[in-house]
């Protein structure tokens, strides 16, 4: 582990591990509702926040959190109405967000430092102590919401009508989830970048759900996959001198493909073994009246 003798590498690793932990923890609720791409859209919106932060010489992460959270609330309100024109509204929001971001960031970085691509695709090696502190705080908040509110967020994502009749505060829970998603996207910006973060929210969940039996098990397994992919991806990118964020995502996808193929084989073998009726359930339709 020779690369850990460098402080910047240790900071990068901590940032990557936090990202791998929190992204699937919140991503599972998005996957459950069929909103897998919402994280990507919020990444687009967050870029405008980055640009605003750079122009006003405030923390780009904090301004990105604010703008992405506003975007998330807007998206949730559109979703709640369930309008057919909703996806057009989303398209306008997402492309407006990224275009505004590109304009603002490019005019800001004409004066100084960080390039557009470091926000879009991540630059974990440039994480400084302040960045890491902020990412740590945001990750703690995200994990607190994702884990402590799990039964409630699970219920509202699983069956919203039932949750309504159970008297749960549907709108508050949905807005909490939306804002937490925005925070996750922004906190993961340094490690994997705004355009790649959605992969770490979705793909580990898609991998875990093929082998896990329950929601909680899927969540923990997805978090383990996310952490492993993020840490391994950073290490591999150090050795091969590749882009760290993209390497993490490629590894996550490789894991997804491997598990999908493996699970398919296992299912085929099991169904071949199950050809004997002893393996089947007892007949449900017993007409003994």
């Amino acid at each position: 582990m020779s690369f850990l003798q460098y402080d910047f590498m240790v900071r990068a690793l901590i940032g990557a591990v936090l990202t791998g932990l929190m992204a699937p923890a919140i991503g599972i609720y998005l996957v459950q509702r069929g909103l897998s791409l919402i994280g990507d859209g919020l990444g687009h919106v967050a870029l405008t926040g980055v640009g605003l932060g750079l122009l006003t010489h405030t923390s780009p992460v904090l301004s990105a959190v604010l703008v992405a959270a506003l975007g998330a609330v807007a998206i949730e309100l559109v979703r709640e109405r369930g309008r057919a024109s909703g996806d057009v509204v989303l398209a306008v929001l997402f492309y407006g967000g990224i275009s505004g971001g590109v304009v603002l960031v490019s005019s800001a970085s004409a004066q100084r430092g960080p390039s557009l691509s470091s926000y879009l695709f991540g630059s974990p090696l440039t994480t400084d102590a302040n960045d890491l502190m902020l990412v740590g705080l945001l990750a703690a908040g995200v994990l607190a919401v994702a884990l402590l509110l799990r039964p409630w967020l699970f219920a509202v994502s699983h069956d919203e009508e039932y949750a309504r009749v159970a008297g749960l505060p549907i709108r508050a829970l949905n807005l909490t989830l939306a804002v937490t998603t925005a925070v996750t996207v922004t906190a993961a910006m340094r490690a994997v970048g705004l355009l790649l973060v959605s992969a770490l929210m979705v793909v580990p969940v898609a991998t875990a759900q093929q082998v896990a039996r329950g929601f909680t098990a899927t969540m923990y397994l997805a978090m383990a996959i996310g952490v492993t992919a993020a840490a391994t991806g950073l290490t591999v990118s150090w050795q091969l001198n590749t882009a760290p964020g993209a390497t993490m995502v490629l590894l996550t996808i490789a894991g997804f493909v491997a598990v999908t193929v493996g699970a398919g084989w296992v299912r085929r073998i099991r169904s071949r073994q199950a050809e004997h009726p002893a393996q089947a359930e007892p007949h449900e339709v017993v007409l003994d009246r």
Partner: protein
Amino acid sequence: MSHPSAPSSEPALRVTDAVVGYAGRPVLHRVSLQVATGEVVAILGANGSGKSTLVRAALGLVPLRSGEVSLFGVALRRFRDWRRIGYVPQRLSAGSAVPATVREVVAQGRLTRRRFGRRPSTADGRAVVAALAAIGLADRAGDPVSTLSGGQQQRVLIARALAGEPELLVLDEPTAGVDAGSQEAFADALRQFVADRGTVVLVAHELGPLAPLVDRAVVLHHGQIVHNGPVPEPAGHHAHPDHDHVHPHATLEQQHSWVGSWPDSWGA
């Protein structure tokens, strides 16, 4: 559980002159219905008669164009005591591929009684186990619900409602397309709930093994109540004594069989 909020003389459910329409198409025309506590009321009717809409409106899932709903004597808009209600929807939402175990789904029923961020209590755990036992799926608790048959999934939904220990159980076509074994398990669970002084509102296309439990039947036709009283003998194919299969997609002829035997003068 004691509920000091409403006197026991109030009906569990009161619907007054309810009017509901989807996209300009009227579905319920001034429907009024009262269900006393301890009563078991079946809401019958053909597909499209408005029977599901009636209970969904009673729970606030469908907006009323006019009319009023009160639950345990409290107007729906001010009603907050949702732990007294157990709702069993028509089917498990198709949802996504994220798996959930039977126990996880049934445990949702306890959320009406749990504080935010709190861990489940031993009472929560006991209620989930009891509900699973009541519908005969205790041995499937750790299995993903997606691996269960349609009838078993329906039983999971009633277990979820029972786990919340409600006073009023509202079931929306719980036995549609459900195999005979599951229908019997369903009837057993419901019988136990009724024996414990529970109130039941049950939407059904036909009652099957649930018929002996029902105190009163309300029949809807084209959004109006055409019968309110004892369970009517079904007409047509349904009259056959051995008839016990269900028609999720009834033919036109069968749809009309509910009203064929009642004179129009029975209309409300």
